[in-house]
């Protein structure tokens, strides 16, 4: 018996799954999730949209007028709150990016064996109630609290009337803090994927650290930056609770207005109109942002 030559495993028998279902695979993958979203998001959202072109209340019923009065009122009366949302949401997104990028970078490249643990430490504080986190911050940053009081009375660095709570600064700080993991985690997953040998190769080719970062690391990290910004900016625009607990009547965001419209005023038409303007604005902003970053091709 001659020694059997090492055989290459034969190709799988029959037409492969890919050939058979090839065209259908993307749709099969999409179907369950999209069906869920369609049933439990799109349909309710369409109903809310119809409220925005109707008049009436939940008790008395709605009659569709197809008029845009609700939208006119929304723009007319609540321009300031829209602006607040954009400003505060934008500021929080930028701050989380500035703080989060180095953190994600360090965990990805220097984390070693404890990567997962450190990453978990980043998100674990957010398993607890938002209310308790905010109350805890207020305890620390109170005008006579353990942090500010010494600065006021012992070191005389701050005036006696200084109070950081109930200011826009506190509100942005709250937003930044609460959305930080939403920036760090996507940044981490994008950075962690980068093959360090690419950076080493760049340096071998006489790129200094900054150039290597700018031309290798950053472009490869862009999908993470994109994702993180989305996960921070979009929800923070609709946020209401940071403004409620940490702000003052001048810093209210559009989320507070919608809350008030729906719950107190029972004004579903204007509340829905505000929501849909917010959603439309965000979609446009996201499309522009994707175009700028050039990640559309990469991330679909």
């Amino acid at each position, binding site marked *: 018996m001659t020694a059997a030559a090492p055989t290459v*495993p034969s190709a*799988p028998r029959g037409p*492969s799954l890919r050939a058979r279902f090839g065209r259908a695979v*993307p*749709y099969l*993958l999409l179907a*369950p*999730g*999209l069906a869920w*979203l369609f049933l*439990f998001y*799109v349909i*309710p*959202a369409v*109903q809310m949209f119809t409220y925005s072109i109707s008049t009436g209340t939940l008790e008395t019923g709605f009659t569709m007028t197809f008029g845009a009065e609700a939208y006119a009122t929304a723009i007319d009366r609540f321009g300031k709150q829209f602006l607040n949302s954009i400003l505060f949401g934008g500021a929080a997104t930028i701050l989380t990016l500035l703080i989060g990028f180095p953190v994600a970078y*360090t965990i990805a490249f*220097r984390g070693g*064996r*404890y990567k*997962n*643990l450190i*990453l*978990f*430490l980043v*998100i*674990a*504080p957010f*398993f*607890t*109630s938002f209310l*308790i*986190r905010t*109350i*805890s*911050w207020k*305890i620390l940053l109170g005008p006579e609290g353990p942090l500010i009081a010494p600065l006021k009375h012992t070191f005389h660095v701050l005036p006696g009337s200084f109070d950081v709570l109930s200011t826009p600064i506190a509100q942005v700080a709250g937003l930044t803090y609460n959305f930080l993991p939403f920036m760090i*985690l*996507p940044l981490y*997953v*994008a950075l962690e994927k980068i093959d360090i040998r690419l950076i*080493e190769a760049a340096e071998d080719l006489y790129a*200094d650290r900054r150039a290597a970062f700018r031309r290798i690391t950053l472009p490869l990290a862009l*999908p*993470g930056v*994109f*994702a*993180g910004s989305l*996960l921070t900016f*979009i*929800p923070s625009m609709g946020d*209401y609770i940071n403004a409620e607990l940490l702000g003052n009547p001048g810093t209210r965001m*559009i*989320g507070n207005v*919608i*809350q008030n419209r729906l719950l107190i005023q029972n004004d579903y038409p204007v509340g829905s109109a505000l929501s849909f303007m*917010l*959603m439309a604005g965000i979609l446009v902003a996201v499309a522009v942002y994707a175009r700028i970053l050039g*990640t559309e091709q990469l*991330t*679909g």
Partner: protein
Amino acid sequence: MADAVSLPQAKAGSKRTGGSFVRRLDRWLLPVFTTLAIIYLMIPIMVMIVFSFNKPAGKFNYIWNTFSLDGWLHPFDWPGLGDAVITSLTVAVLSTIFATILGTMIGLALTRYDFRGRGAINGIIFLPMATPEIVMGASLLTLFVATALPPLAGGVPTLYPTGFLTILIAHVMFNISYVVVTVKARLAGFDRRLEEAAMDLGANELTTFWKVTFPLIFPGIMAAALLAFSLSIDDFVITNFVSGTTNTFPIWVYSIQRNALPVQINVIGSIIFLGAVGLVALTSLRSGRAVRIR
């Protein structure tokens, strides 16, 4: 005779020469920054844990009074609180699992396949994040109630009265978007040739997925799952609308403020936090030389 091409000297400060002050500086700059950032993230948790050992002078745990173990000895000292906590944890775990699976599938489809309607689908993914929670909650409730009223009653499975199932449905719904966005950050630029190589070597689609694709995208899936869990376990507004007569821990926490702020909130928050961290620390220590997910 051509001169041998002379190699430029290695730049001072590059890896080759090593050991400059700047290099040493930013060797520890990043870790220090990260440590400070992690401490920053932990600060309110520390305060929360400290105040869980407080015995407030009145009904509100805002100011330090005296040390006491009362809260820890009786963490579920309110009617229905234990059930609420269990409901929250169960919903969080289940919705994380379902949302992660559904969201990852969508993420895979969006980044790897070319098909019509991608733009619209991306839009549908982003919209739930953009919608204020109160709008989602109120409209979902209206939908659930409508399944028990004509014309839908009898024709579709009724989702009214609301309760555990509707909470779960809502949580999966809003989590899917976050999962998709996070997983896509990982899938971007995924090298399909790795999969092609595996299939050239005889693996079928499924084996390729499990042995090649899945391990590589696993950090993205894990991160997405963590985000989804944290969103679910503290969701108040939407859950409030669709929970019916079921109570959850966040609803209890946000509702209690008018009359009291008991130590139990801190205690249960600490238990959840320390429990989660302990669990992860244990599993990562137990696998000895930590399995690098790479």
